[in-house]
C-alpha cells in the first residue's frame, strides 16, 4: 500500500467538502476517482499532495503519516500532482518547464528528457517555444512531462482529458497505460468515465464529498446505477 487515505474530512472555511473519505492504492496500481462536478475530486487530490490539510483523518504515503507535509515536500518524496489548471511557467520554454520538473529529484536529466520526448514527440519539436504559447493539448503534455521528470512513484492527475480533442485524449491514455506498465502508481480524477475505467484497476465514485461506491473498475463499469448516471451521459 503506497498511498492510503483514512477517513479524512476536508473543509474550505465553513463549508465541509469531503466527509469520511477513504482511499487506497497499491504500488503499480491505477486508481480512478470519478464523480460529478463539485463532488470533491480536486479537493481529494489536493489533500493528498498537501495543498489542503484535512481536519480529521490521516493520509499515509509509503507507510508513514504525511498529513502535515507541504506540496513541495510531498513532491520531493515522489508523489507528484498534475492539476487541472496545469500551473505551467508560461514565460519559460518547454525545455525549461521540463527541467524544473526534475528539481524534486535531480538525476540523469538528459536521460529523463529523452524519455519524456519519446512519450511526447510533439514536445521535442517545440522544446524552445514558450509554454504560454502552446495549445491546450500540448500544455497538458508539458504538465505531465514535467511531473515525470523527477522519477515519481505516484502520479496524481486531475481531469487530464479536459480541453483535449478526442484523438489527443486517446493518445494521452495510451501513454498513461504505458506508464502504468512501467510500474508507476496512478490516481486519476476524471470526467471521461469509460476511458478512465478502462485504464484503471480500481475506481472510487465520489458524490457530494463522500464515497458512494468503490471496487474493481470492471465491476464499477457494470454497475447499473453508475451506467445510468455516468455512462449514459458521457
Amino acid at each position: 500500500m503506497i498511498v492510503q487515505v483514512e477517513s479524512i474530512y476536508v473543509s474550505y472555511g465553513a463549508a465541509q467538502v469531503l466527509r469520511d473519505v477513504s482511499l487506497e492504492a497499491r504500488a503499480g496500481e491505477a486508481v480512478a476517482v470519478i464523480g460529478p462536478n463539485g463532488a470533491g475530486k480536486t479537493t481529494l487530490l489536493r489533500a493528498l499532495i498537501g495543498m489542503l490539510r484535512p481536519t480529521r483523518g490521516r493520509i499515509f504515503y509509503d507507510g508513514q503519516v504525511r498529513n502535515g507535509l507541504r506540496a513541495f515536500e510531498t513532491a520531493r518524496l515522489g508523489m507528484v500532482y498534475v492539476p487541472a489548471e496545469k500551473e505551467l511557467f508560461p514565460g519559460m520554454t518547454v525545455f525549461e518547464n521540463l527541467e524544473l520538473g526534475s528539481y524534486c529529484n535531480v538525476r540523469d536529466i538528459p536521460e529523463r528528457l529523452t524519455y519524456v520526448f519519446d512519450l511526447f514527440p510533439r514536445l521535442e519539436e517545440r522544446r524552445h517555444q514558450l509554454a504560454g504559447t502552446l495549445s491546450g493539448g500540448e500544455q497538458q503534455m508539458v504538465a505531465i512531462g514535467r511531473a515525470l521528470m523527477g522519477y515519481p512513484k505516484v502520479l496524481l492527475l486531475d481531469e487530464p482529458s479536459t480541453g483535449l480533442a478526442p484523438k489527443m485524449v486517446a493518445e494521452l491514455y495510451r501513454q498513461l497505460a504505458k506508464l502504468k506498465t512501467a510500474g508507476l502508481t496512478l490516481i486519476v480524477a476524471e470526467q471521461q468515465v469509460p476511458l478512465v475505467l478502462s485504464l484503471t484497476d480500481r475506481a472510487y465514485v465520489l458524490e457530494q464529498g463522500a464515497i458512494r461506491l468503490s471496487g474493481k473498475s470492471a465491476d464499477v463499469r457494470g454497475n447499473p446505477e453508475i451506467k445510468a448516471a455516468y455512462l449514459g451521459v458521457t
Partner: protein
Amino acid sequence: MTATLLDGIVQGLQLSLLAVGITLIFGLGGVLNLAHGQFAVVGGVAAKLLLNLGVHPVLAGIGGVIGAGLFGLLVDRSLLLPAYRYRGEERLLLGLILTLGLSFVIDGYLNYAFSEFSLTLLLPIPLVQIAGIPMRTAGLTTSAIALVVFLALFVFLRWTLLGKTIRSIIENEVGAELCGIDPARTRTIIVGLAAMMAGLAGIAQGLFSSLGTEMGPEFTILGLLVAVVGGVRSLNGTLVAGVFLGIVNAFASRYIGAYVAFIILLSVAMATILLRPTGLLARFT
C-alpha cells in the same frame, strides 16, 4: 544635448540598480519593500564603518554590499514572517505596512546614531574625455558596475538552476511548489540578493556624489517608481524604465529646473502607472 542624454543614461542605470531589488522581492515574495531605500543606506553605512577601520576602499565597498545583504536576510526571516502567512492582497498590505514601519525604525536609528554621516568616495581621475565630451569617471564607474550587475543577473537567471528556480516562482508560485521547490527558502535568498543590490546602489551614490543617512525615503520612492513603471514582475522592464526615467529627469533638470523636473518625473511615472498598470513591457499571462 548628447551630454544630457549620457547623463540621463548614467543616472538611469543607477535607478535601475536600485529598483531591480524591489522587482525581485515583489516578484518572488509578493511584498512591496518600502524600506528598500534604507537597505541602500545601510550598505553605505556599513562601507563607511569599514573605511573608518582602515579597510581598503574596494574591500569596504564589498563589505558594505555583503552587510546590506545580511541585513536583508535577517529582515526576511523575522519581520516579514507574519506577512508570508497570508497570500495575495492581504500579504501585500501587511508587507507594505511592515516595511513602512521598518523604514522608520532604520531611518530613526541611523539619523540619530550617525547624524553627521556622509559617504563620499573619490576616484583618482575625476574626468575623462569620451568622443570629445568630458564625462565624470564616477558616473562611468557606477554605470559600468550597474551594467555588470545586470548582465550577471541576466546570466544567472537564464542559465543557472537557481536562477531558473527563481524565475519559476515569479512566473507561478503554485507551479514551482508542485515541482518540489520551496518558495520560502528561495525567497530568503532573493531578498538577500536584492538587499545586496540596494547596498551597491547606496555605495554607488557615495561614488557619484555623496550618501547621507536621510536619503532612504528618496531612494525608496525612486526605486518604487522605476519598478512599477517597468512592471513589477519584469526585470527587463526595470532596466528599461530606469534608463527612460533617468533620461526624462536629466532633460527636465537641464532645461527646466530641479523641483519642476522632479514633479515631471513623478507625473510621468504616475501617468505610466495609470495608463499601463502592468508596466512598460507587458508580459504573458
